[in-house]
């Protein structure tokens, strides 16, 4: 299966074709394709005139990138210090149990990806869970099922948040 090339072409026109654009190009590719497909990395390498191996090194060094497709719903459990001391670990454990996957994995139906992130900068509301782009603060293990339910219905972020409160 070949991937559509149009988004990539568009991304490449946004940045000067040089090595220093690499990370930003990869970020946009990650956003557009939900992962960094190998075949596209080759094209990025060619376009920016960077050796393929260097592209791979960068793609695997930074946390923002994934070579495997991510799930439709990205659940990111904050692992900042504030979240940790307020029980972030329990939240992660419960998500693992609810989804039946480990940290960093995607459910077999491709629906959910569970990740730990280092501090999303909303420490005052610890522990925090970010689902796609929606922040949920002051999490407790009891609220997680409701978060998952909210992702199934296509609710707006605010409505979904209301539901967990």
């Amino acid at each position, binding site marked *: 299966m070949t991937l559509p090339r149009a988004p990539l072409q568009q991304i490449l026109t946004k940045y000067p074709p*040089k*090595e*220093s*654009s*690499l*990370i*930003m190009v*990869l*970020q946009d590719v990650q956003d557009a394709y939900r992962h960094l497909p190998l075949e596209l990395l080759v094209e990025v390498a060619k376009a*920016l005139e*960077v050796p393929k191996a*260097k592209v791979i*090194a*960068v793609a695997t*060094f*930074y*946390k*923002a*990138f994934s070579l495997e497709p991510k799930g439709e719903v990205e659940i990111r459990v904050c*692992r*900042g*210090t*504030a*979240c*940790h*001391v*307020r*029980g972030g670990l*329990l939240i992660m*454990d*419960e998500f693992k*149990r609810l989804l039946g996957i480990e940290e960093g994995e995607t459910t077999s139906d491709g629906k959910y990806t569970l990740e730990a*992130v*280092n*501090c*999303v*900068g*909303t*420490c*005052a*509301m*610890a522990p*925090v869970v970010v689902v796609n*782009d929606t*922040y*949920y*603060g002051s999490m*407790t*293990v*009891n609220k997680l099922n409701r978060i998952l339910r909210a992702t199934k219905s296509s609710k707006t*972020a*605010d409505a979904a*948040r*209301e539901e967990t409160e």
Partner: protein
Amino acid sequence: MHLTSPEALKRLKSQLVRQRKENKSVITVCAGTGCVACGCAAVSAAFREALKENHLEEKVEIKTTGCHGFCERGPLVVMRPEGIFYQRVKPADAKQIVEKTIKQGKVIEKLLYRDPQTKQLLTYEKDIPFYNKQERLIFGMNGHMDPTSIQDYITLGGYQALGRVLVSVHPDEVIEEVKKSGLRGRGGGGFSTGRKWASCRQAEGEPKYIICNADEGDPGAFMDRSLLEGNPHAVVEGMIIGAYAIGSHDGYVYVRNEYPLAVKNLNIALAAAREYGLLGADILGSGFSFDITVSRGGGAFVCGESTALMASLEGKIGEPRAKYIHTVECGLWEKPSTLNNVETWANVPTIIEKGADWYRKIGTENSKGTKVFALTGKVNNTGLVEVPMGIPLREIIFDIGGGILDGRAFKAVQTGGPSGGCLPESALNLPVDFDTLTEAGSMMGSGGLIVMDDRTCMVDVAKYFIHFLLEESCGKCVPCREGLRQLHEMLEEISRGEGGVGTLDGIERLCSVMEQGSLCALGRSAPNPVMSTLRYFRDEYLAHLEAHRCPAGVCKALINYSVIEENCTGCVVCKRACPAEAITGEKNQVHKINSEICTRCGICLAVCKFDAILVE
């Protein structure tokens, strides 16, 4: 609008100030990431709706501002000019606020803040202890302006410092002024900003680069995010002044991709500054040119280290290199580069505007000015606080922070992020400045203050930080990469109650090798969380090792969950919630936890409403 001289900028300011006075009331809705997370967008929309219904759109302005700092209480709404402070405002409250407060001038009590200690209701922002002990030099503007409006920034006096510098101050004088102010880098190192600029100005090689480090990686710190989100122009202005002083024409902001709002607001600010002739070619008609590129980080804590950040800007993996030749001489693309963090840059316009002598009056002998801290953890008022250097930790935690959550006992405060350390109660009276914190075995770092109570296990905290660093080490040098692996292994053992007292000697030996042998600051300071907890909380380590007990009840291998029979009502909630089905008991009967099956997940503790779960 393209301003071609500092005079034009001044004229614009007075014009804007005149216009502003005509608007009587302003509803400021905080739209920092914290408040966004609480649904402030819906609140703003509800206000807009309510004003429309009452035909007040012309008379009342809604301003969505950057972070006010008191994130705990979001969404925050402040009614200006009175300064009435409403907290935890729901969209449904908007109508009432417009009806009562705006139309009738009445205060709505249920939205006011109640002081947790005095139980008093406080109406005005200025009366709230969280705010009134602070000195909001850098951060104060946030609550008064829409970060996406350059006009708001100019109205509040923004870019005037730049205008003055460009026409009447020699670059050397700018550097002298910054030197004299005593400003030290707010990113953690605490190096004199003025001296850094002077070396970069003198360094041979062209072009020279200006870099703003906005890769706020310390978990538990978010002041840079709030500054960039809430007042991006202050950072931009600081950078332009710095560029002028150093003789640079290219600037970069390396910002965390995890901060989308900061990226957005910064880009808006840059575009506006360019449009107004404050950025780009021939700034304010002075002949000086400078522009800024925004570079989003890829997600690596190590990129907070200056050389790794520069490697990342170059599009490479973020591996640091030795700094025997300083980055001010050989930095980005091996050219002279000046790197300061967001907060440092944001201090610059204030220093230039008000003068080094004025600035020097704030703070202590060797640490001047204010510092923004992210106060989080087990404390009542969490949020961002800006205080003068030298204020005792106790005042931050107990006066501004309102004491420990749930009335529990204070145990430690973690400062300086993963490179810092945990300070005990005996350190609470220490004045907060660069040198005192370092002497106490911690560090200022970027300004995270994470408060811990008696239910926080210090071995677990040390393990947490080492695990964090283990995942964030770039892996280039042996002591950091292999040392962290081993250190984590040893701490795991301790948290399982395994190993002997000899383990602690082994840890200390390894820490010394890492401190002395590692390539960059990440590895060299990685032992700090372990060494500081060993220094102040050795007993707790020994409890794990000798008594096989975790006094705080955290380390899973050493604790047991049981039911306190007197408190248990037999409500079956815990039994239903237990994922391991380890709880037995009929309805209305005292329940029992089978510790063989129990996975110590803590769910029963979280769901029990009767305090009937005991962890020991």
